[in-house]
């Protein structure tokens, strides 16, 4: 027990350092890019330089970068993430609005991707080299290589424009939602979720399936599989045993995909106007919104650390050898 606590403490400290380093890097690199938050919200061709300079001074952006950095770090240490210039309200409020939307979309998409990807990959791995495997491999490779943005647009075009069986953008029907019954509201939100979820899930499934297939086909050639067959276990039981050994890389990959819960859906959120963290981050970078970008990075790196930790725990649960070590 003491060992576990020590290890968790060590990981937590590591995580704090990682978060600090990542956020500092983001803050400094954004400051090195041309422009500043004021140039991001006020067109230089239409707002006089003097006025922009006054806005800069009002927000403290005219201070040397070291001063800005020190002040920002001090604020972050006190739990204040600063004021978003592109939203003109506290960055924490922007995140508070956006985070639940992204968590909803990405958790559903990531969960489905892992499950479907693991199932399809395991099915393929057990039949590696046969015609069905080759067909599915080709299909998943095709999906894997399609740009996410393009795929999302294609879905939008087909299902929202051509066939028009699903809504195009947003999280709900902006005009009718308030007059719906609670049950209709749930259905409306589900309908709006389908296309962004499908975009992410299909692409994610292709990734997980490829990894799962590769490990599964390797495991199927392991001596313990031959032994199991020699002992007369049914093929289904053999595959179950093999799959348990082959799931470890998927667990690691799922853990590493954890940050995508926050930032992974940048393009899909943009196409479907899903008001999540990804689109907020993209917009914030475009507008040089220092505080919002830094806040996103802090949350993102915290999620990375947490995901990595969770992956370790799950791996230990799944693989007895790791528990022993």
């Amino acid at each position, binding site marked *: 027990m003491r060992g576990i606590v020590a290890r968790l403490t060590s990981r937590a400290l590591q995580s704090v350092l990682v978060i600090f380093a990542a956020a500092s890097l983001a803050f400094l690199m954004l400051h090195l890019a041309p422009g500043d938050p004021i140039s991001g919200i006020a067109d230089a061709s239409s707002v006089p330089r003097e*006025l922009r300079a006054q806005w800069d001074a009002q927000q403290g952006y005219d201070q040397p970068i070291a001063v800005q950095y020190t002040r920002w770090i001090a604020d972050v240490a006190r739990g204040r993430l600063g004021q978003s210039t592109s*939203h003109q309200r506290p960055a924490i409020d922007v995140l508070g609005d*956006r985070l639940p939307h992204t968590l909803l979309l990405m958790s559903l998409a990531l969960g489905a991707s892992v499950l479907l990807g693991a199932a399809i990959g395991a099915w393929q791995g057990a039949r590696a080299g046969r015609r069905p495997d080759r067909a599915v491999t080709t299909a998943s490779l095709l999906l894997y290589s399609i740009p996410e943005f393009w795929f999302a647009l294609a879905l939008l075009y087909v299902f929202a424009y051509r066939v028009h069986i699903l*809504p195009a953008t*947003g999280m709900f029907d902006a005009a009718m939602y308030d007059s719906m019954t609670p049950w209709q509201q749930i259905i409306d939100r589900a309908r709006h979720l389908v296309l962004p979820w499908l975009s992410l899930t299909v692409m994610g499934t292709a990734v997980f399936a490829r990894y799962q297939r590769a490990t599964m086909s390797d495991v199927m050639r392991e001596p313990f599989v031959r032994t199991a067959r020699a002992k007369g276990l049914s093929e289904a039981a053999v595959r179950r045993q093999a799959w348990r050994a082959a799931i470890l890389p998927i667990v690691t990959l799922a853990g590493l995909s954890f940050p995508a819960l926050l930032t992974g859906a940048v393009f899909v959120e943009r196409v479907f106007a899903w008001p999540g963290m990804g689109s907020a981050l993209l917009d914030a970078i475009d507008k040089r919104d220092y505080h919002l970008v830094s806040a996103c990075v802090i949350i993102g790196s915290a999620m990375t650390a947490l995901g990595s930790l969770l992956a370790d725990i799950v791996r230990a649960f799944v693989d007895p050898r790791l528990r022993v070590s």
Partner: protein
Amino acid sequence: MPSAPQDTAAPSVAASGVRQRHVTTLLGLISTALLACSSADKVTTGETGGTMVIVQPAEPRTLFPPRANQTHELSVIASVFDRLAEIGPELSTFGDIGFTPRLAKTWSWAPDSLSIAFSIDPLARWHDGVAVRAEDVRYTFHVYTSDAVLSESRSLLGNIDSVSVRDSLTAVVWFKRRTPQQFLDATYSMFILPSHLLASLPDSALVNAPFGRQPVGTGRFRFAQWEAGSRLEIIADTANARGRAKLDRVIWTFVSDLGAATVKLSAGEADFLEQIKPENIPQVASTPSLRLESYLSLRYGFVGFNLNARREPLGAAGTPHPVFGDVRVRRALSMALDRARMVRSALDSLGMVSFGAGPRVLIPDTTVLRQVPFDVAAARALLDSAGWVDTNGDGVREHNGQALTFELLVPTSSATRLKLSVLVQSALKNIGANVVLQNLDGSALGPRLDARDFDAWMGGMQTNPGLQGMRQTWASRGALNHQGYNSPVFDAVLDSALTTFDLARSRGYWARVFQQAIDDAPSVWLYEERLPIAVHKRIRIAPLRADGWYANLADWSVDPAQLIDRDRVGLGGAR
């Protein structure tokens, strides 16, 4: 007199509370019924009712008028707030010609014209029910000119000395000097703010105050709700003294990808799209439920030349730019561009060749202007005469060891300017000029312009009515005169045009102003756009004003014969 003991008073208070609740409930039911009847009645008569869903690429940052400067912010603000008086459709800025009452019911000029007394409409109410007072006008001027608020409009209010309150319904605006545009100064740049809600806050807290996300105005629409990232809704103010807005609701939704926004519109999920990419116009045109409209805007585009050496501060003594310091070169470059063909190629029927340093809507008489002609042979000859010749046969002219090569900055935010920049590059190659295109996003372009670290740029300006902005954009000391154009003649005639009270002489001065800018060619005056909008066919729109499509939004309505589901929601649940 001794007060009644609490234990005897309590039942009375409780009973009174219960009665009050019953009365309130009863009144609520009656008013709801009346509202429902009136709403239904109005829908059937076609006068009012309906919902319009607008899809736009960006979400407002704030609805606090002094700090809102983008079209997508102003479209909401202009519907929720009022000015003292509203400019007419002709955008005339000469005195109060064409202006119509808004919060001010009437106004009277002082004999010396150095003040105007605005009489506030006694029936005008804020959306929270409080009466509008002259103090609101005085407070608004204070906020717009506050050092802590730093409003962009402050520079347009420079001629206003102060605002005083004569009585509770009369605000007097005092001017520093008489100008033909002083009525515009007093009205156009300020949306009146509620002092009873804001005056208790320090000025420094106003910009980020909750009011910016839950505004209370006096317009014919009132704010209903704003869900960050999803929608912003305004509803008709049924108690408005000037009459409720014809539409029940207007809802803005935010889709940053214009392609997806067009799909949303074509799929019938939205009724109005303000920005349409040229490549999406056929898709909109082929959608039976939509119609395309366009309107002249106050935008114009140009190729702006840096007339001084790179990085030389504005207003410095002025080392001429090695290429653009010579007016003959600038005119030759203008002559080499077939602007009509270029504009047609980039903008099709939505583009027009610009007349000069302002949008045609604001130029009093365009017929008298003599343009630089398109004449490639003359352009070559002019460059030859200026000493620019291709001595080494590499296709690029030189003069005193300086090649006729320059960098052209292009903002990536403008598809039109990106297209035109390529055409400019190609056309100028024909006369031996080498143009190096440098595409930059807005955040990177701004610092380059500020530092004057450029040769030329694909510029664009959005002006206000009245052309006072020309002092900033083209006069020698103008803060937005990135080109460093410095012509005493231009400055003098511009000053005369902006200050004369004789309408006929004013037109003459304006003609000279624009002609001077054409002759001096600090820029190639390239294009103006008719801005396309797509709107659902059931929506009946009011005339679109050049300074903003949204100017008469309260008069837009829905054809009662074409109602769809969302039109039947009435004022909705967001009241």
